[in-house]
């Protein structure tokens, strides 16, 4: 899994859009290949027989942009075309070395926030751990 794309896909939508908008002037002319919402089929593996089967589909937003031969891509949960486009812009900026250090700093900050949110959830989950005693 690509950590940067993982982070951008779950980053705070408002912050992502605000940051990506600042990249547009520096990216120059880009081609929008796709900007749409649709469904991603999600399979899971059965632990009894090892068979992969479909749970169902997830509503996603997708953006695919290009600058020359380089692609920028965004895919995020739900219907938010601006957010998926913002993800694609950051991805393209990083792939074309446009304001790379700022992009990395943005991703690092978002990754840290996501990690903290996960830790908060897991500390609450840990509070429900059963410490078995045998009588």
């Amino acid at each position, binding site marked *: 899994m*690509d950590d940067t794309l*993982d982070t951008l896909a779950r980053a705070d939508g408002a912050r992502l859009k605000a940051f990506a908008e600042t990249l547009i002037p520096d990216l120059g002319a880009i081609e929008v290949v796709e900007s749409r919402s649709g469904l991603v089929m999600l399979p*899971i593996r059965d632990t009894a027989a090892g068979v992969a089967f479909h*749970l*169902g589909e997830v509503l996603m937003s997708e953006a695919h942009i290009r600058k020359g031969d380089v692609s920028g891509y965004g895919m995020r949960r739900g219907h938010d075309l601006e957010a998926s486009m913002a993800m694609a812009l950051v991805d393209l900026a990083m792939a074309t070395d446009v304001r790379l250090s700022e992009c990395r700093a943005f991703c690092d900050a978002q990754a840290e926030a996501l990690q903290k949110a996960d830790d908060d959830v897991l*500390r609450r989950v840990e509070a429900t751990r059963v410490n078995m005693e045998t009588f």
Partner: protein
Amino acid sequence: MAYVATRGGERAIEQSERLFREDMGPFDRKRVDEVKQGLPYLIDRVMGEASLYDEDLAALALAQTGGELYEAVLLLRAWRTTQPRLQVAAPIEQDSLFTHRRISAAFKDIPGGQVLGPTLDYAHRILATDVLQGETYSPEPVEPAANPSPAYQPSVSAWQAENDLLDPPADDPTKGNEIPDLTREPLLFPAKRAHTLQSLARAETGGVLALGYAAMRGYGQAHPTVNELRLAEAEIAVTHPDGRQFSAGRVKVSQAEVVDKKGEKLGIGYAATFGWNEVKCIAAATLDLNSPGAEKGSATEEEFFLYHTEGVESSGFCIHFKLPHYVTFQSSLDAMRDAKAKKAAGAAKQQEPAE
């Protein structure tokens, strides 16, 4: 079956729909958000049965139908057919689930331990009637542990397979569009395992529970013990145009394994669904456990439980009986009258010699 074309109901039909919707009044994004925030387990159930994951759409469907679950699921199933499929994600593996709840009723000391997660299993079922008198119900806050629980928990069944308690699952290299898909292929019997499990994943909760419960009560071949029950979030692993794989977000999933003694090893049944709906998963896994060798026409026979737990089809068939069946019914009446007339004629004929 036959129908008769009738006219004259257009206005009544239009007004009846208006009456249904008028009872709920106008609604907007605020109501959708309130449904989403206040009823997450209902949202999960609807998303599972619709096999469409999006909390906003599920809340909208519930708001639009006044909580008529079959209508809500039908709306979502219909809507999904209008959408393009962007990708097929990589299969979720159990050991990559971001786990919120993981328990076993079979072994107390499972690898990774037992975490109860969010549950009302041990709660007193007391209705908070004070709320109706104007009080605010404020649940006690969780006291977080100092250290986080491990996000990923090992598989109980893999541990059992290592200890020769059950046969390990076979390798299945199927991925992407090769995975059998009920939304694009018919369900045929004997069903492919991928079809069976997909069908159970989108089955109607009450139907699955009813048939699973029948098996649990003895109308099946195996008595389930919950080997592992897990509520978790799963990554949606998609592919960038340049080939990099990444997680495009997480969705809530439930999965259950149930086991029973089968010769020298354990037999195992499995089920999973979108959202957190553990009753459905335990019941569905029980049906999976019971289905091998089940008697034709029994509740645990695959064809029986898959056809009868498909909520959209079964509710649709049920409500179709409300539609005019005037010709069919008139035909039945004609047959009854004919039989009655023949019986009367026969009786009269038999009486003739005595007259």
